[in-house]
């Protein structure tokens, strides 16, 4: 059924349709509306048989989730940014214990400087924690991925993060098709845990494992991700059969046939990229794009097949690995190992900076002429950077960088004198 609602509210409703039994809530922008929404559904009696627990921190949120999932309850929570970092220890732990928790990340930058707006620094920091990471391109896909995530998590006994861009998706009102309870029930069977705390059959879960076995345990975590590479498209196909639309999968290709330049990105920026691709295709540029839905497991073979015939790849990424460049680009290069085509890294949208079609088109055009650097920052204010470097180079006690740049920019605008 079609609704004109906020992305967060739609996700809350989608999660409720999955009949979670325990939901832990701790507020952090821009995720908060989601747990508020689930809480309201529980409080109003629309979502029954669900314990909604207000906790004192994100670390507690995921820890409560670990306990409830280990005791066999379908469990959900959501977080973002600093909250994901604060629960980092539990993030790894949940995966190590093989607990099929589903968690939404309302993607947001990480401070300092504190910044509440969107980029992918938060979920990227946990990319190797052993969770499956799915990135939603649209709010409709965010809704659909949550429903798929529970099935995926529970089939593999592996936690799943559904990453959706903060504000751009979480706070956007748009038309979404929310499935019926009957369809979701048909798609998502009740949770049957592979391990559960039960007095009738007592297990010890979380024992100490030494050098004799640790490698094998870690290998099996990797193997679980490899199984997910097969399962994600299968679940996508079943989903299409029940709900009638394509959602999820490993990657989405857009006009890659015959493309010499292929853009690769995660999440909602793919919408803008496709618009630019359309414009440039109209100007006879041989360009296409690939949106990666499953970042963990990383679809090396599928991505290679999609990119290998291009002449160059441009990776647009909302995360910076200081001292290296791009995280996603490094993964894309792994998919293209042995091939000679250049993979350019464009860092864009950090801390919520708007990614403009005109800026993307400029970069893609330059890429088509192979005039890009290996690493560049979209729409960076080089003047500010140079000024700050010069100023900081002159005086030892140069003070905090962020505040200095703000002061300098205010001076130029003639305010704050």
């Amino acid at each position, binding site marked *: 059924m079609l609704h004109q609602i906020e992305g967060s509210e739609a996700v809350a409703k989608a999660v409720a349709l999955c009949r979670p039994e*325990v939901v832990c809530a701790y507020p952090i922008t821009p995720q908060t509306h989601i747990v508020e929404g689930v809480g309201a559904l529980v409080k109003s009696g629309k979502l029954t048989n669900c314990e909604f627990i207000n906790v004192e*921190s994100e*670390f507690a949120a995921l820890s409560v989730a670990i*306990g409830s999932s280990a005791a066999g309850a379908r469990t959900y929570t959501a977080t973002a940014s600093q909250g994901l970092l604060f629960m980092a*220890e539990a993030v790894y732990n949940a995966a190590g214990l093989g607990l099929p928790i589903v968690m939404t990340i309302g993607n947001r930058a990480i401070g300092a400087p504190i910044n509440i707006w969107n980029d992918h620094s938060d979920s990227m920091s946990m990319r190797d924690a052993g969770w499956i990471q799915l990135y939603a391109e649209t709010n409709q896909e965010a809704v659909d991925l949550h429903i798929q995530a529970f099935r995926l998590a529970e089939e593999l006994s592996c936690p799943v993060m559904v990453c959706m861009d903060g504000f751009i998706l979480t706070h956007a009102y748009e038309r979404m098709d929310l499935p019926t309870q009957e369809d979701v029930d048909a798609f998502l069977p009740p949770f049957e845990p592979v391990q559960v705390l039960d007095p009738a059959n007592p*297990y010890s879960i979380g024992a100490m494992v030494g050098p004799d*076995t640790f490698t094998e345990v870690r290998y099996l975590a990797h193997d679980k991700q490899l199984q997910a590479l097969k399962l994600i498209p299968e679940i996508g196909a079943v989903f299409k059969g029940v709900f009638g639309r394509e959602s999820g999968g490993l990657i989405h290709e857009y006009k890659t046939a015959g493309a010499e330049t292929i853009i690769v990105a995660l999440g909602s920026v793919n919408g803008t990229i496709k618009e630019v691709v359309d414009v440039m295709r109209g100007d006879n540029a041989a360009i296409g794009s690939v949106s990666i839905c499953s970042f963990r497991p990383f679809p090396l073979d599928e991505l290679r097949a999609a990119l290998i015939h291009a002449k160059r790849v441009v990776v647009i990424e909302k995360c910076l690995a200081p001292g290296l460049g791009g995280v996603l680009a490094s993964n894309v290069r792994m998919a293209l190992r042995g091939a000679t085509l250049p993979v350019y890294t464009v860092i864009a949208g950090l801390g919520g900076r708007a990614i403009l079609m005109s800026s993307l088109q400029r970069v893609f055009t330059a890429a088509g002429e192979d005039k890009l650097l290996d690493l560049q920052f979209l729409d960076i204010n080089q003047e500010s950077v140079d000024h700050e470097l010069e100023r900081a180079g002159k005086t030892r006690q140069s003070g905090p960088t962020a505040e200095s740049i703000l002061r300098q920019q205010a001076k130029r605008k003639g305010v704050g004198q």
Partner: protein
Amino acid sequence: MSEQQPQAVKFYQTGTHTVGNRLLDETKRTVQASLDRSNAITSGHRACQGCGEALGARYAIDAAMRATSGQLVAVNATGCLEVFTTPYPETSWQLPWLHSLFGNAPAVATGVAAAFRVKGRKDVRVIAQGGDGGTTDIGFGCLSGMFERNDDVLYICYDNEAYMNTGVQRSSATPPLARTATTQAIGSAPGNVFGTGKNLPLIAMAHNIPYVATATVADLHDLEYKVTKAMGMHGARYIHILVPCPLGWGSASNATIHVARLAIESGMFPLFEAEHGEVTHVSKIRRRVMVEEYLKLQKRFAHLFRKGGNDVENIARIQRMADHNIKRFSLLDEEAR
């Protein structure tokens, strides 16, 4: 008030401090004396000789198992208890047991309790347990959150007054002057400093939770009684058990119970129960001893008893702490004065 009050027999009338199990009514005899005790932490684990924690946990969990007819789940913080009971692929635990992290056992237990509640398994009860580091330091936030929400969890802290598993480092439960690997017995102020540390039973009481109690391994019957009482209640409950650590305290491994008893009899560790923030019962000191007797059995305080003469001033400072406890909790009755 304590159920033990009406008991006609005073245990120490035999002339020793032995708890005379056979003097008790059969229904009140210790769980460990029963053939159907659960052996929840079964033998073969790797605890040190004389480990107070192994003893305390064994009695606590078996008592809880009896109180719940075996419908019990235990959550464990990282620490000695976790490590010595579960070197993979072996485990000592005869009940469902979950270890997640060092600082999250109370929250994990909240989740386990929530899962059983939502599944309608009202009969299954949850215990969380950890050492003093996992409780008073790194797990404190999660513990306070669990208390504040009044989640249906009994949390047991086995307090051996330092991070023993990592090699005896100071925690916020380490007493003043105690030597640890991070409060060395060197310099002009050897050992741990005065004026620090936190009293978690009192902090737990400040949450107005249904039940708070302290216990030691010197009186295992009292420990069992308090665990049994706690399992007869719902909501957040807290039991703080003093468990001497021969390794960390530098006490003889055959002196664990004796040292724990001296902690009580000196007033260093008051035994009490509290319900909804109010103290409801205090165990009186039977035969008062000066703190010196307690301290000198432990090498962690050896710097107070050097050949050149005792550190009278610092021993007096600790004595004042014990005196303060005695006054604050009215630990002496007329007989013991």
